[in-house]
């Protein structure tokens, strides 16, 4: 839920609740006041009736005025004055009208009379209705205004916050830009901005350190590895080595070789991430691809291999293109089953390589992750496809993986690099 929606909803609900309770209380109080007023009026009428009543009259009239009724009752019966609510049919309005009645007794000539004074409640009720209606209208107007006022206040108060949020959202640590958050008049937002700026600069520093460390470590590792490999290779050339000894040396060599390949791949990934391959140039894709396929030909004699390569130059860093193509071809060859098939196509700037093979044992979406490898190829570094993805990401090339009819398909669309080529030429 958005902040604005949430606040509006809360404010509206609370105002509705308060207004609801308030209206009920207001209605009750008004009604009580009106009730009291009516009762007072009736009582004062009772008093004037009592005072004006002639105690010696033998036959009092049936009524003093239009709203009193006098009835003779038995002499023993006295009625304590009391208020009653009733309805009386009005011949004028042709409907029952609510009335309040005050009933009391009068004594004249030792005769008891029951007096009823009526007071129409029509007027006070109408008043009450009008008041209620007015309150309701006021409440609705109030809620609507609160809703809009809240929105306006919200926008103006949180504006700086949203500006900062947008900036942070668009911030990419890998681009190593500096971030400047606008100063706000609100202290809390200013504090937040300061905290964020400090945090980001610290993360940036750590990120840079880590990158530098990776680059330095991998680079520095190459020399000792070269020494280990060369020493082992020399040792292998010694005379009179036993089979056991050559086996041991071969083990050292193989591990050192694997380590150096792994290191090379990591170094390459770091370099791609560090934008160290900025220089691009027009490349004859078809020729490059054909050269690599020729190089691999020694490997793939035993596979059924087909290629269809058309011309189409692109603008790219040649080394990265080499690495990209080699890794994809290598992947196809490594995971191709014996006597399997490999297809390589480059048509309309779309590079497509497919190889037959077993379905993946790893989740499909993890195929481009680091150190993810198919089980049958435990010696592979698990970095090949990660490098492919890094290079594709670097150039924003769409890369697609599919498995259909027992074949793994990789497709890369190079067409976005063609436009760049045209702008360069």
């Amino acid at each position, binding site marked *: 839920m958005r902040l604005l929606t949430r606040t509006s909803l809360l404010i509206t609900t609370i105002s509705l609740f308060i207004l609801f309770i308030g209206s009920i209380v207001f209605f009750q109080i008004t009604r009580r006041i009106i009730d009291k007023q009516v009762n007072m009026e009736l009582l004062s009428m009772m008093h004037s009736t009592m005072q004006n009543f002639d105690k010696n009259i033998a036959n009092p009239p049936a009524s003093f005025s239009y709203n009193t009724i006098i009835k003779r009752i038995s002499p023993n019966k006295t009625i304590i004055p009391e208020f009653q609510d009733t309805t009386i049919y009005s011949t004028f309005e042709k409907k029952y009208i609510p009335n309040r009645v005050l009933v009391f007794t009068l004594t004249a000539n030792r005769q008891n009379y029951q007096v009823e004074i009526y007071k129409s409640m029509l007027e006070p009720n109408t008043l009450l209705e009008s008041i209620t209606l007015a309150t309701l209208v006021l409440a609705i107007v109030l809620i609507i205004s609160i809703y809009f006022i809240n929105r306006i206040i919200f926008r103006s108060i949180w504006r700086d916050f949203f500006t900062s949020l947008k900036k942070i959202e668009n911030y990419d640590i890998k681009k190593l830009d500096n971030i400047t958050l606008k100063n706000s008049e609100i202290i809390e937002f200013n504090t937040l901005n300061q905290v964020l700026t400090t945090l980001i600069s610290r993360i940036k520093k750590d990120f840079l350190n880590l990158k530098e460390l990776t680059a330095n470590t991998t*680079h520095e590792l*190459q*020399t000792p*590895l*070269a*020494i280990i*490999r*060369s*020493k082992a*290779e*020399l040792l*292998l*050339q010694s005379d009179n080595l036993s*089979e056991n000894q*050559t*086996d041991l*040396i*071969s083990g050292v*060599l*193989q591990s*050192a*070789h*694997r380590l*150096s*390949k792994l290191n*090379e791949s990591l*170094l*390459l990934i770091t*370099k791609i991430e560090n934008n*160290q*391959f900025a*220089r691009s140039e027009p490349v004859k894709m078809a020729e490059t691809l054909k050269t690599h396929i020729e*190089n*691999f*030909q*020694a*490997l793939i*004699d*035993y596979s059924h291999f087909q290629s269809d390569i058309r011309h189409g130059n692109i603008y790219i*860093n*040649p*080394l990265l293109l*080499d*690495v990209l193509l*080699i*890794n994809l071809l*290598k992947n196809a*060859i*490594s995971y191709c089953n014996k006597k399997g098939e490999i297809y390589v196509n480059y048509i309309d700037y779309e590079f497509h390589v497919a190889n037959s093979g077993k379905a993946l044992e790893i989740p499909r979406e993890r195929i481009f992750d680091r150190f993810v490898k198919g089980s*049958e*190829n435990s*010696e*592979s*570094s698990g970095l090949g496809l990660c490098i492919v993805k890094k290079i594709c990401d670097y150039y924003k090339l769409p890369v697609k993986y599919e498995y259909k009819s027992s074949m793994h398909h990789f497709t890369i669309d190079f067409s976005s690099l063609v436009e760049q080529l045209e702008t360069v030429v």
Partner: protein
Amino acid sequence: MKILIVEDEKELANSIVNYLVKFEEFTCDMALNYNKAMQLMESFDYDCLIVDIGLPDGSGLDVIREAKSMDLNMGIIIISANNTLDDKIEGLNVGADDYLIKPFHLSELNARVHSILRRIRFEGKSVIKIDEMLVDTLKRQVTVKDENVDLTKSEYDLLLYFLSNRNKVLTKVSIAEHLCGEYIDIYSSLDFVYTHIKNLRKKLLDKGCPDYIKTVYGVGYKFITE
């Protein structure tokens, strides 16, 4: 043949020297820094220069520039830990003949040295002779007793690699990398090396050559000529 190795890592330089001097035709000098390299180059004539780019007191590229300005006719191989295209292009632009990325196989370095020396010392007309087998490296042609041996490109490259590293153990990985380029790291399918060796051996045996190629169990192969 005299070779100068300019490499600041003493151990690596030692290994290279040790490997190369096993070939009777080579003598090697070693320079651990730029100044020593310049000194040696001024005092002696070398046929080949193996130079690292990152030196403690200068750049290997400057060593190459100096060598070129002295108009020394020698083959130059750069060995560098830097695998970027710019470095490679710059190295080749200042006059290097080849560029090898660390870490490399000593046998590969040796093969490249041999190849360069063949090119500059014999203007490419070098013919390698082993018993009755003649390998013309210009025509890329192999004959045994005047009879042409029909080899594929991979088989020819393999034979030349063996000839450059005669009587040395060549690991399967180094053969694979030599045939397919440095990016190859398909350990699970090194069978193709075996396939090529089997074919090459068979073709040579068919023409009456002795069985030069010996299998070194678990490691690789050796081309024995004595």
